């Protein structure tokens, strides 16, 4: 099991009467890509701001890289990078100048690093164009470049692919994958483009009204979102045995109500129902179901 680099325990954030975060707890392990999913005003940005040090929690504890005190957290942030809300940029400076300013601020000695990250995000040819004249996508790339400057171990990104064209989305996705696989960079990404998240994330956190609604791994989510058959008979035990012996279906879930759920052999449903009938099992219900990510998301956040 990989190391826990961020642990949030019962984090609370109150603005006046409003609870922006209400007892939020989760962990992030090294090497994971965590998708933070929730509607507008759910508390995603608040979590990121607290992690980044821009805001202070009202209650609870934040632990990053094993430290909880302010000095330690500041030091931990030097191993991280953040892109929260819209990227912060000097509009009257060029991309290169913006990055150079950040390079100096971070104390990165390598002057070539600016060119490297510009190339990574494909902004190396912007020349003297100032950021004021950039498109939304270009600004987003610049923000990502900024986030990559310090070769962080952990990146916290708030809607990083917002405004990118499809080509750009693919590029960035591949970049994230590469960073994660080759350099073991941990990421926490919030996005509304769930399909993109589903291609990238290893873990998911669903949040709404400041509360965690659910936490799943990618596998769990896949499971939750797959097609399946719901089988209910007068003798589910016998039915289960038939499925295993005759059709080799191993993955059979028995639900709380006693019904069965299978994810494999969905194309052989006719044979299955015939086999039931031949063995004296009367099927009460045989239905094909599907849960997609949006549905799952809507279900999670509405609870």
């Amino acid at each position, binding site marked *: 099991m990989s190391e826990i680099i961020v642990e949030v325990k019962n984090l609370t954030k109150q603005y006046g009467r409003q609870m922006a975060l209400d007892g939020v707890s989760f962990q992030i392990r090294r090497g994971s890509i965590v998708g933070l999913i929730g509607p507008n005003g759910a508390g995603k940005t608040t979590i990121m701001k607290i992690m*980044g040090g821009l805001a*202070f929690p009202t209650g609870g504890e934040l632990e990053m890289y094993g430290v909880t005190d302010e000095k330690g957290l*500041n030091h931990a942030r*030097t191993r991280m990078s953040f892109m929260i809300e819209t990227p912060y940029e000097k509009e009257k400076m060029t991309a290169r100048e913006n990055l150079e*300013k950040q390079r*100096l601020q*971070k104390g990165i000695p390598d002057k070539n690093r600016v060119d490297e990250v510009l190339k990574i995000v494909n902004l190396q040819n912007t020349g003297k164009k100032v950021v004021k004249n950039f498109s939304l996508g270009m600004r987003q790339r610049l923000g990502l470049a900024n986030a990559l400057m310090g070769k962080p171990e952990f990146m916290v990104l708030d809607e990083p692919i917002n405004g990118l064209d499809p080509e750009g989305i693919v590029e960035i996705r591949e970049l994230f994958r590469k960073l994660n696989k080759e350099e073991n960079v941990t990421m926490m990404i919030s996005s509304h483009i769930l399909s993109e998240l589903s291609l990238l994330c290893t873990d998911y956190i669903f949040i709404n009204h400041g509360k965690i609604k659910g936490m799943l791994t990618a596998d769990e989510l896949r499971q939750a979102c797959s097609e399946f058959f719901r089988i209910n008979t007068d003798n589910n035990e016998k039915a289960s045995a038939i499925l295993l012996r005759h059709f080799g279906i191993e993955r059979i879930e028995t639900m709380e109500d006693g019904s069965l759920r299978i994810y494999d052999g969905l194309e052989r449903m006719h044979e299955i129902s015939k086999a039931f009938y031949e063995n004296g099992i009367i099927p009460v219900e045989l239905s094909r179901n599907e849960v997609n990510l949006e549905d799952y998301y809507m279900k999670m956040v509405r609870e």
Partner: protein
Amino acid sequence: MKNIMKSIWYEIYHRKTLVILFGAFAALMAITGFSGTADATYGFEQGGVSDMLAAHPWVPYEFPLLFLTIFVGYVCCEDYKDKVANYEILFGHSRKSIYFARSLMAIIVGTILSMLLGFLPLLVGNALAGWGDCLVYEDILLRYLLLGLPYLRLAAFLVMIAFLVKSPYLMIGIGIILSMMIGGLADMVRHSSSVFVSLFNMIALTEYEGWSSYNLDPTIGTIRYYAYDSTIPAGLVSGTIIASLFMTAFYLFMGYALFRRDELN
């Protein structure tokens, strides 16, 4: 802290806004020195720049005060306007180093630049008309050097305000109001313990005790004569030093106390 200062310097140098602004103020001060000296010396005929400094004591601080406010506003607020300053926290710099990096840079560099501006009219006037004998040169030099201390104190106060308002435009407005107020404040200074408020301290350092009289001339009318005593009382020196250092430290402390738990959006 060092890195933050470097990044601010980089922006100042590349954007050149402040460089141009300083140049504009320098030109303004030079013109003030030229015209003020010409006026005080009847077209460079009689007297010298000391006549101008005695007649217009506000010269070394009225415009530099505005520049100082703009400079502090730029250094402390500009990056908060577009939230670029948030990166300092996000990158792991402590609130202490962020605050003191910006504030010390604003205070020290702002004070030095303001003092340079304050000296310009003196240098220009001296080059054109000589010193004259209205005031003693060494006394004025000491007074103008001491002027750095109330600048320091005022800059520290402005830094505290800047971190609260986080708007360079508001700081410009404050600077304009201060420059406009300074004339009215000169009348209040008689009723104030002058060293404890930096504006009054500046007035006390640049106004000279003395006597003035006049004669009536049938052609010109009233001709005024001034005799100034430019020696600086020991109490004013010690008061300026103590009050400035103490209040600068206090404002820095207060500004940091307000900033350390400030939530940034």
